[in-house]
């Protein structure tokens, strides 16, 4: 036991010495070179919790590309990310929506670049014993979530699910307690798809019918659905899969019922033409294979940076997220960017500068 400890200690010292040598070598070779050279320094970021698992995985893998660079991504929510970026406490922020007009003043006229990095479906998950496949239209989803459809055997649900035996039990809603980008994009979907039916607006917090059960985080909502027979809720794909929930196929803009999956989410984003600043909404995509409740998240950075080193580190890390990092997404339950948007985002990397 003791010998083992001593061995570990020696190994630790050896490793530290090697690391220091490597650092010394690399810092002397950094000067001048752009790509391929080793960078030293720290990038701090906060924001979107939707991005958090992806960022954590990417930070881990990025160590093998730039061993002397440290990236910290604290979650906290998109709103926190944006206000941290505005306050200058982070070098980049993760956000599930573009900067809302109420916040533009905080950025004091400085240009913020949007890099889309991640796409993901939001499932409509339910807990009905014996019902393994369910089809829902945006109208039905809207009426369920604003409390106008109250029972599972409502004619509106029955008519689109012939052959499925639906019980005559009340529907209980599972929603988010904390404000979140998932809620914002789920309500944006309903607002875009069925504006005449959906009355509760679009925001990261919605005034749900008071009977709704609220959980913290996607995991919290998934837990409510899992433990409450007759419940339905919106949960992001990764958490729904992790909790083993059953989810509905949702009718898209072209009229097809599509199940949530990384493929159908990528298809949704591919059917959207982003604006010149690369902002877009992947919900209610016109593509025939698209899953209609698909959302996206961006990395936000200031175009003008104060130092060359920070510029290079940002280009290296965001370049990694858009390049090799995209391969990490599907195993985590997210979807890759369609290549058209990925290319446009990569092309924008050069805009970051002094």
């Amino acid at each position, binding site marked *: 036991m003791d010998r083992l400890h001593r061995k570990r200690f020696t190994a630790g010292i050896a490793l530290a010495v090697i690391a220091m040598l490597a650092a010394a070598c690399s810092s002397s070779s950094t000067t001048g070179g752009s790509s391929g050279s080793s960078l030293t320094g720290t990038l701090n970021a906060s924001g979107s919790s939707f991005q958090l698992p992806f960022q954590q995985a990417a930070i881990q893998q990025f160590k093998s590309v730039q061993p002397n660079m440290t990236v910290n991504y604290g979650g*906290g929510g998109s709103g926190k990310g944006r206000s941290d970026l505005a306050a200058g406490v982070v070098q980049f922020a993760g956000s599930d929506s573009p900067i809302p007009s109420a916040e533009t003043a905080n950025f004091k006229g400085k240009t913020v670049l949007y890099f889309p990095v991640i796409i993901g479906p939001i499932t409509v998950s339910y807990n009905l014993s014996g019902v393994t496949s369910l089809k829902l239209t945006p109208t039905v989803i809207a009426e369920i979530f604003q409390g106008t459809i109250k029972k599972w055997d409502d004619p509106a649900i029955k008519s689109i699910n012939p052959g499925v035996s639906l019980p005559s039990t009340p529907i209980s809603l599972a929603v988010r307690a904390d404000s979140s980008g998932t809620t914002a994009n789920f309500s944006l979907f309903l607002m875009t798809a069925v504006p005449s039916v959906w009355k509760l607006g679009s925001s990261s917090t919605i005034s749900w019918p008071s009977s709704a059960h609220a959980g*913290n985080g996607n995991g919290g909502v998934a837990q409510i659905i899992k433990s409450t027979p007759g419940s339905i809720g919106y949960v992001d794909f990764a958490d729904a899969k992790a909790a083993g929930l059953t989810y509905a196929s949702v009718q898209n803009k072209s009229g097809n019922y599509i199940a949530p999956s990384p493929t159908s989410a990528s298809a949704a984003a591919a059917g959207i033409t982003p604006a010149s600043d690369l902002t877009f909404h992947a919900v209610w995509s016109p593509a025939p294979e698209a899953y209609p409740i698909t959302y996206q998240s961006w990395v936000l950075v200031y175009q003008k940076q104060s130092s060359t080193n920070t510029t290079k580190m940002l280009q290296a890390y965001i370049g990694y997220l858009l390049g090799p990092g995209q391969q990490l997404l599907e195993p985590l339950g997210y979807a890759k960017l369609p290549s058209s948007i990925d290319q446009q985002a990569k092309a924008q990397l050069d805009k970051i500068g002094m």
Partner: protein
Amino acid sequence: MSVATRRAGPAIPADPARALSERRPLGDRGFQILALACGLLVLAILVLIATSTSQQAALWFSTEGIKVFAKTWNPAANQFGALPFIYGTAITGAIAVIMAVPVSVGIALLLTQVVPYRWARPIVYVVDLLAVVPSVVWGLWGILVFGPWIQHIYASIGSAVQGVPVLDDLFGPPTSGASFFTCGIILAFMITPIVTSLSREVIATVPAIDREGAYALGATRLEMIRGAVWPHSKGGVTGAVLLGLGRAMGETIAAALVIGSSPTITSHLFAPGYNMPAVIANQFGEASGVWRSGLIGLGVMLFAITIIINIIARGIVDRSARRQRGA
């Protein structure tokens, strides 16, 4: 003595005791300044918190005006009325106090009047252990274990009282494991240690002569507590209860997890609700503009309410302590 004199030189008096007493004021003054600085630091931090939060909340107060007390909080429609949260804070605080106080005072009486000292010690330790459970643990236990368990009890009470006037409004459906009542119970657990220990201290100050006098007059133990202990410690226990209330109202993360997060004003105690600290914790991350300012404003209101409650509580405790000294 002579050594001291030689070292001190001719200007210093020969008596070492006097020399010491003359040297002391310098150290004393230094300590006084240090202590004063520490005290002022606390005050300065409080003032800074109050000013910076009020400043950030100003946008909400100026945009909404009197509507800060409106009954609708709906960020999707830009409505930011605080009434549901004030209501929820009052309700959950009241439930917590109603449940915690009899138990706490009971434990305090047990410790001071019933069991001998060597048995009281372990009970005190156990009660104090409740206070070291982190609030997030209370919250998680509440939502994962206690809530799902008590949900069935709520449901059976709810169906039992259906149609009965008043009771139906309080305990009838809708019922949910995460509700005003669950939150109140969890908060009651959390404030029991502080109310117990403060009550115990107050009750322990009852002069032995009063108690023995009561016994001498032929009083039973209950009569002695009613006649000698209670009049003496009434004020102090009231203060302890108010301090407990202040803690219950400010408790954040446990409340955020178990209260159900629905900004509704309803008489149904088993229905999901919301209170001030919980909404701040849940919504701050994504909020911006008036919304963010409103959440900070709720913090300012809560700050003011708890300060007022604490001042009243301290006043009551001090007054009763003075009266006891006078007696």
